């Protein structure tokens, strides 16, 4: 149940929204054209900060001046701000889809498709320089699955009392990361976090209680990690000072869509990468060299793979500062092949548990930064 009074941490957000609107109102009163200043959300507007370990937003700003052709977006952004203010004031939330449906009451200013409302929301979020959970909007997507010796301390939704969740007690299932995790606390004796690309590999490791054997926490990312997943891993790793190791397919998508986004954030959400990145993450495998060392079955690279490699080497700020990654990508391009995590099964279904992971863990030199 949403509470009616405004929590203290939300007051700041409300003030910021009111400030923007008031400023705009006065500008219009003075017969000047108001502007919406939104940081440009693209890979071209980020730089990799090696010290901080994540993508930092550069100063490029997209200024949208109120004219006949921008007035629709203006009206929609302001409507979205009003909705956000209302949500934050009443400590309520709306999913992106719900916000889209709320707009159906806005008459001519309504959104026709959800992507339109998502874009306006992302712009507003960037404008506020906070993450969207703080302005009352939550994503639909699931955060990821957790298994291992970890106690997550949450609050009871009804009573607000402390709620201890033991992640070893989910049997063949797993604990699911909530979409907002700022309030979570952790207790663990594990030595490291292992983030896994595919649900299938997670299932295998969970089934054989690999977390017990290696004394680690397993996280299934299910493709590109969601914001919640990134935030959860970051908070967990920070709070418990745990190293994070990433286990992905050996292909450009695994390297630079999944691993890179987890470690340093994305171009699209650059304004919040500070919180949604895991700089301590390291790439455990599968590396291109692993393909050779473990004689893995492969698939040929496709046209899109070559394109992605070329694009990453040329444009990705993280890759540009990493000799190792450039070498790895060039090696892959030369080998003309890629391999999936599951390819390890060619040497026996549990080869990954008995041989590959222990080998790799003992050999940090074979990791990639």
């Amino acid at each position, binding site marked *: 149940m949403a509470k009616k009074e405004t929590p203290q941490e939300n007051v700041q957000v409300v003030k910021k*929204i*009111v400030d923007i*609107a*008031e400023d*705009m*109102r006065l500008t*219009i*009163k003075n*017969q*000047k*054209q108001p502007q919406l200043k939104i940081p440009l959300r693209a890979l071209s507007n980020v730089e990799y900060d090696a010290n901080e370990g994540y993508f930092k937003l550069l100063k490029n700003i997209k200024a949208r001046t*109120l*004219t*006949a*052709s921008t*007035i*629709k977006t*203006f*009206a*929609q952004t*302001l*409507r979205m*701000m*009003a909705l956000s*203010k209302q949500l934050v004031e009443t400590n309520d939330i709306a999913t992106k889809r719900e916000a889209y449906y709320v707009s159906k009451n*806005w*008459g*001519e*200013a309504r959104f026709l498709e959800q992507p339109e409302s998502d874009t306006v929301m992302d712009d507003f979020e960037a404008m506020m320089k906070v993450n969207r959970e703080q302005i009352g909007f939550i994503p639909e997507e699931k955060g990821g699955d957790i298994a291992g010796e970890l106690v997550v301390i949450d609050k009871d939704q009804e009573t607000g009392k402390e709620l201890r969740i033991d992640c070893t007690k989910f049997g063949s299932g797993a604990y699911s990361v909530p979409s907002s995790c700022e309030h979570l606390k952790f207790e663990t004796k594990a030595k490291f976090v292992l983030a896994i690309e595919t649900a299938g590999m997670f299932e295998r490791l969970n089934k054989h209680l690999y977390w017990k054997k290696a004394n680690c926490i397993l996280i299934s990312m299910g493709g590109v990690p969601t914001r919640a997943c990134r935030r959860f891993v970051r908070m967990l790793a920070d709070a418990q000072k745990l190293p994070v190791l990433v286990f992905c397919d050996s292909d450009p998508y695994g390297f630079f869509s999944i691993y890179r986004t987890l470690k340093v954030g994305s171009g699209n959400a650059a304004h919040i990468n500070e919180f949604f990145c895991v700089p301590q993450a390291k790439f455990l495998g599968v590396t291109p060299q692993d393909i050779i060392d473990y004689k893995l079955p492969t698939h040929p690279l496709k046209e899109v793979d070559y394109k992605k490699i070329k694009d990453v080497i040329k444009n990705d700020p993280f890759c540009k500062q990493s000799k190792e990654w450039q070498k790895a990508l060039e090696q892959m391009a030369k080998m003309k092949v890629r391999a999936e995590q599951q390819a390890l099964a060619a040497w026996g279904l549990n080869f990954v548990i008995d041989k590959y992971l222990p080998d790799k863990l003992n050999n940090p030199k074979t990791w990639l930064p």
Partner: protein
Amino acid sequence: MIVKSAEELAKKQREISIAEFFEKNRHLLGFDNPRRALLTAVKEAVDNALDACEEARVLPEVNVELIQLEETRFRMVVEDNGPGIIKKQVPKIFGKLLYGSKFHKLSATRGQQGIGISAAVLYAQLTTGKPATIISKTGKDNPAYQLKLKINTQTNEPQILEEAEIPWEGKEHGTRIEIDFEGSYMKGRQSVDEYLKETAIVNPHVTIIYTNPEATQLLFPRAMEELPPEPREIKPHPYGVELGRLLKMLEITSAKTLQQFLTEEFVRVGPGTAQQICQNAALLPNTKPKQVSREMVEKLHKGIQATKIIAPPTDSISPIGADQLEKGLRKEVNAEFYCSTTRPPEVYRGNPFIIEASIAFGGEQDAESTVRIMRFANRVPLLYQQGACAITQAIQATAWRSYGLQQSKNSLPAGPCTLVVHMTSVWVPFTSESKEALAHYPEIMKEIKLALQECGRKLSLFVNKKRRIKEESKKRSYIEKYIPHVAEALQEITKVSAEEKKKLEENLYELLEHTRGELEELTVENPEYDEEFAKIGAEEEDSEQEKEQEKPEKKEKQKKLIE
């Protein structure tokens, strides 16, 4: 089998007179069906009347009357205020095919062959058996004389049935023809009504008084008191002369030598050029024309083509003028945009010609159907055989999409548009004797396309401007749509009073409208437009003929689409 001897067959072999030939092939002259016959008869009579008046430098006033005698029988009376025809000439002009003043000279007149009016007389005689009645008066002091004549189809000679001197009160000079024939009167785009109206459009110096079979009188008064410049007769240009014509010219020339023949009978041939031609033809300049053999003529013909000769003078033809053409179109079509152009003179086969074009776009015209085409040749409207005409083909070959009209490949463009094309020349090349379609000479096609493109460019400027204005007003309606939302959201966030909100809305209006500036306006004002005038010929097409004519075209189009 019975074998016939050559002698037997020879009994059936005899000369065919030209009149007999056309009696059997009247479709070649435009008398193939009753509706078209009515139009062709009027057309031939009016063309002749106008030519006669202009040649005599008299402002033409033509009276046309159609009387329905029976279901399918009509009487046509056409009377002009021309110079009249001397008594001796009347029978030959009206009663002998291929007799006329215009075939052997080159000047921009309506008639060319000397077939038209006598063919109408012949057609009347064929369908009703009645003679034509001609009255002509050449001056105030001369009496008018009346003739009733028929054509002897075997000899192609006039046959006078009656002749008399009669008083013609109130008429100083002029000619009147009256014939009865089988016909069918229908309204529509191929009607006599339409023909006379279009004639008025491109002949603003002409007054036409027309009484149609419904006894309605339509008056097309002249819009200008000046005759167009007199068409100048020119000698043929060597490039345009065919072998047979060259042979004939050599036979009848009075020149003493080939050199003299070339310089005297042709335009743009001086002594130097004549020598050059003879040299290229390997003939002696002092050869006597009478002694030139057929082989030598062929050499001469080749020699001409091999010699560089200056293009013919172009001052022998005069266009209607872009302004006049546009003015006529304004009267007929109520559109939003008009433009017109007159191309500089060009030459095909040694004949100078000028192409003019005009476009009327938008307004009350149907936006979905194909464009309306109005074709003219030497100020004569062409109503039939649109599909076979070079003008139509040039329109199809022009890329109209870039000018803002819709067009599928190799077909006529579609849109709210009327296209007018006029060709004037000392010799207009028609595809047949009925003179309804221009022949496809590349030079002519090229000029038509250039004229259309010139108009098209102006049209695209207008279409773009119209689109801009449409977008602008769309943006303005945008402003009005969303200002309340901006104000309401701001009020919701900042909690200002309703009064402040109203002020905010006003401020927003001022701010946004102000930065947009004045709205460009497209005012359409066409004082020239004459609604009654435009209605003539615009009635429902009810001709079966028309539909049948269009069918094969459509089938072809479908074929192309499938391909």
